């Protein structure tokens, strides 16, 4: 199932690149389509980091406003449009988190997430959104190869913005172990994207 989804995902990456070119030509409809595709991913990502619906909404707005204003700054050699947008959102959210010191609250998010029900409306972009959803389920399955510790270290780094030494201190384990576990976790994640490349 995953190869088919990956293939669809690669097709979607090409569509995203086309959308970005249209955005560079000030096509508002292109931005609306991109928003429909990725706001259901960016919003819970921001929510996971800042633990505030208001802040998460602001962050999603900021990200798409940035895409609209700075679409020429997209570094095509550093990954897909999707990974660029996700990185924009994650980095802004971490900045917000560091500025407001929401670190304690971030732990409460998982409880909220359990109550979240995906509610995707059927519109012109529905197919792309469903592909994304199916892809996400497959990625989740693939990530089961990661150990709990690898996932924990990656999440602490990605969602909470902790450095490796901070993670070592929090988890009370040697810094070398943290580095190794993180590297292994990233390698397993990259294995998924490599299969994506092979499918392309």
């Amino acid at each position, binding site marked *: 199932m995953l190869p088919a989804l990956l293939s669809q995902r690669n097709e979607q990456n090409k569509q995203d690149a086309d959308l970005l070119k249209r955005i560079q030509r000030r096509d508002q409809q292109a931005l609306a389509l991109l928003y429909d595709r990725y706001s259901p991913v960016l919003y819970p990502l921001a929510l996971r980091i800042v633990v505030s619906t208001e802040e998460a909404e602001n962050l999603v707005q900021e990200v798409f406003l940035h895409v609209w204003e700075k679409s020429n700054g997209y570094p095509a050699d550093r*990954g897909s449009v999707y990974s660029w947008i996700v990185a924009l959102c994650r980095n802004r959210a971490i900045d917000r988190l560091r500025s407001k010191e929401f670190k304690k609250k971030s732990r409460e998010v998982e409880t909220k997430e359990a109550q979240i029900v995906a509610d995707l409306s059927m519109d012109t972009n529905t197919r792309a959104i469903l592909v994304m959803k199916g892809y996400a389920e497959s990625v989740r399955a693939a990530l089961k190869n990661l150990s709990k510790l690898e996932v924990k270290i990656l999440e602490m780094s990605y969602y909470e913005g902790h450095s490796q030494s901070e993670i070592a201190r929090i988890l009370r384990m040697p810094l070398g172990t943290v580095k190794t576990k993180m590297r292994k976790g990233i390698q397993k994640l990259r294995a998924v994207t490599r299969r994506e490349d092979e499918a392309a």
Partner: protein
Amino acid sequence: MKPEERHTHLELCIPYVFGRLNPGNRKQFETHLGSGCAECSKELAQLYEAMALLPLTIHQQQPPQQLKGILMQRIGSGKEAPEPVRIRTEQRMPDAAVSPPQRPWFGYAIAFVLLVIIVALGIYVNDLFRTVGAQEQTIVELRTELAHSAEVEKILQARRVEIVLLNGYEPSSTAFGRIIWDPLTKNAVIQVSGLPATPDDKVYQLWVVKRDGPVNAGVFTVTSEKDRKNFFELVSLTVGERYEFEGFMVTLESKGGAAQPTEPKYLMGTTKAQQ
């Protein structure tokens, strides 16, 4: 570039993606990327792609529907570097997208300060008017007193002045007074001391005692402590001729005065004793 140097830069890719490079290292790494290192760029691209998978492990959730409308409105307005709209705090109203940051407390504070200033100014002006009114009243009283004094002085300076002593009787046995009058002009001054303060519904009434009975010569009131000690009042004794006057008396009567005196007599004196 030496192989070990390239390796060092590759080591920086992970902390760079996680935003954990210090400013110095980040600048150095970005300079390196800017030099066109394809290997590091590829490494970064793969890392970004890999890390972008993590958000997919979170269940997808659409943001509030209004958010898209607000975003599109902002984009449609064509403003440079638009500020994000806080739909939560702005009650999710699309119009809030173009609203500048609100500071209602500032306006309220200014309004409040202005109100306080206006009220304080009003109180001050009101006090000023009261003070002026009180001073005008004092001026009137002083002018009246001066006029009185001038009249009294005129009577005292008359060629022929007659004085009738008034003695106190129960219930004001310690009171005393005198009538000083000019028989020619028939102007007189009544001076009394020690009379009780006049009750609100009463007046003191001066009577000229004639052979055929007392005749009203006017009313007066004693209210202040100053008046109780020493009270002057100008009266006009036009109720008859000097030879008809046998004496004077003061009684306490109902407000407006009485046709005939009632008991008790507060003060009384006879002209015969003075002659």
